[in-house]
C-alpha cells in the first residue's frame, strides 16, 4: 500500500484546521512551525553522526570511549537540539554487520542523525528487516557474506543505536573532515557501506 494513495493536501487541511483552532485558543502562534523547520534542517541531521564516525576512525582513544559509552562520547561534540537518554554505538567488523530498525514505531537516533528518511518509517522496512535482513540489504545494494553475522537492532525502548561503519582503506591519509563528508546517513543505519 502506498502512502501516496491519499493526497497529502487532505492531511495538510486537517493539520491546518487543528492549528487554526489551537491558535484561536492561544495555545500556538503562527511562526512556531518556522522554528521547527530551522531546527531540523540546520541544527540536527546526519552531519552530526558523520563527525562522530570520522573521529572514531581517526582517534582510537575516542573510538574506545564511544563504544564503551556512546552517550558521554557524543557529549564531547556539544551538538545542539538533539536529546538521547542513552546512545549505544555498534561497530561493523569483518565478523558482524549491524543494522537498526524500530518495528513498533519509528525510533531513530535523532541526536546524531536528525529525522529518519521516509523508508525507515514505512511498513515495508519495519516488517521485513527483522525477518529477511539479507534480502532487504540486497535491495539496498549491500551484499553481506553468508558467513558474517547479521545483527538487527530493534529499538524497542529509549536506547538509540548508531552503526559505526567499517572504515575506507585510506583513513590514514584522509583528514577527519574529508572522511566525515563521505559517511552517509544510510551507512550509520546499517543499510549502506562506505
Amino acid at each position: 500500500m502506498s502512502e501516496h494513495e491519499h493526497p497529502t493536501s487532505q492531511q495538510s487541511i486537517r493539520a491546518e484546521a487543528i492549528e487554526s483552532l489551537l491558535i484561536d485558543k492561544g495555545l500556538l502562534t503562527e511562526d512556531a512551525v518556522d522554528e521547527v523547520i530551522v531546527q531540523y534542517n540546520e541544527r540536527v541531521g546526519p552531519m552530526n553522526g558523520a563527525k562522530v564516525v570520522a573521529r572514531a576512525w581517526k582517534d582510537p582513544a575516542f573510538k574506545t570511549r564511544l563504544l564503551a559509552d556512546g552517550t558521554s562520547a557524543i557529549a564531547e561534540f556539544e551538538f545542539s537540539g538533539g536529546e538521547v537518554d542513552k546512545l549505544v554505538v555498534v561497530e561493523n567488523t569483518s565478523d558482524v554487520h549491524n543494522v537498526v530498525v524500530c518495528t513498533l514505531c519509528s525510533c531513530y537516533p535523532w541526536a546524531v542523525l536528525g529525522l529518519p528518511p521516509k523508508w525507515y518509517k514505512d511498513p515495508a522496512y519495519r516488517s521485513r528487516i527483522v525477518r529477511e535482513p539479507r534480502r532487504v540489504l540486497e535491495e539496498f545494494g549491500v551484499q553481506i557474506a553468508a558467513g558474517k553475522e547479521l545483527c538487527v537492532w530493534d529499538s524497542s525502548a529509549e536506547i538509540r543505536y548508531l552503526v559505526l561503519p567499517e572504515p575506507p582503506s585510506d583513513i590514514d591519509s584522509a583528514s577527519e573532515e574529508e572522511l566525515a563528508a563521505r559517511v552517509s546517513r544510510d551507512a550509520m543505519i546499517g543499510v549502506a557501506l562506505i
Partner: protein
Amino acid sequence: MDGIHDLGGKQGFGRVRREQNEPVFHGRWEAKVFALLRAARTAGALKNTDQFRHAIERIDPIAYLSHGYYGRWLGGLENLLVEAGVLNRQQIDSKALELGADTDWRVAARPVAQPDVVGYESEEPSAIRPLPTEPLFQVGEPVHTRGTGTAGHTRLPAYIRGREGTISAWHGGWVLPDSNAHGRGENPEHLYTVAFSGAELWGEQSEPGVVVRIDLFESYLLKM
C-alpha cells in the same frame, strides 16, 4: 495492544521504496505537526512520549498504513486533543470542511469517550531511573519472553513473544512504558538487551547468521 503498528515480521509489504534527494519535510504541514505537538503539551493533552505512542497505535488501522508518519502523528495528536477536551471532533470537522476537506476522506483519529488512563505525573527529560533492586537476570543467561500481549500499550512486539533468547546487556532501571502510557505511574524496571537467533524467530525460513537484538523490560521476561 495487538495493533497494526506491531509490524515486525509481517509479510506482503513488498520492496522498501526509497526517495532520491528526500527533503527533511515533504510539505509545510509535516513540520506543522511538530508545532501542534508542542501546543498539545502546553494544553495538557500530551503528557509523555509513551502516551503519545499509544495514541498513535489507537488510530484507524487503515489510516495507519496509508497516511504516512506525520499523518499517524496527526491522528494520535487529534486523539489526545479530543480526549482531553481541548478540541472536539465536530469543531475540527467543520473547520476542515471550511478549509476544503473532502467529506469522504478517512480521518485517522479515533478518540474514545473514556480513555484508559489514571493520572499523569509530569514528564522528566530522561527515562532512566536507577533502581535499588538487583536485576533478576544476568548477562549470558537464557530467558523466555512472555507469551501473551496486553490490552494497552506495551513494547514487547508480537514476533518476540513466547521465544527463547539470551541476555546480552543490562541497562539498569528505566520507566516502564506499559504503565507510564496510561498514567499508572513510572514503575521503573530493569531493562535488558536480549538476543534471539533468526532460527528461533523464523524457523526454517530464517536467513543464515541472523541475530535480532531488542530491548526488553524485566516483566516481559521469564526464568528458564
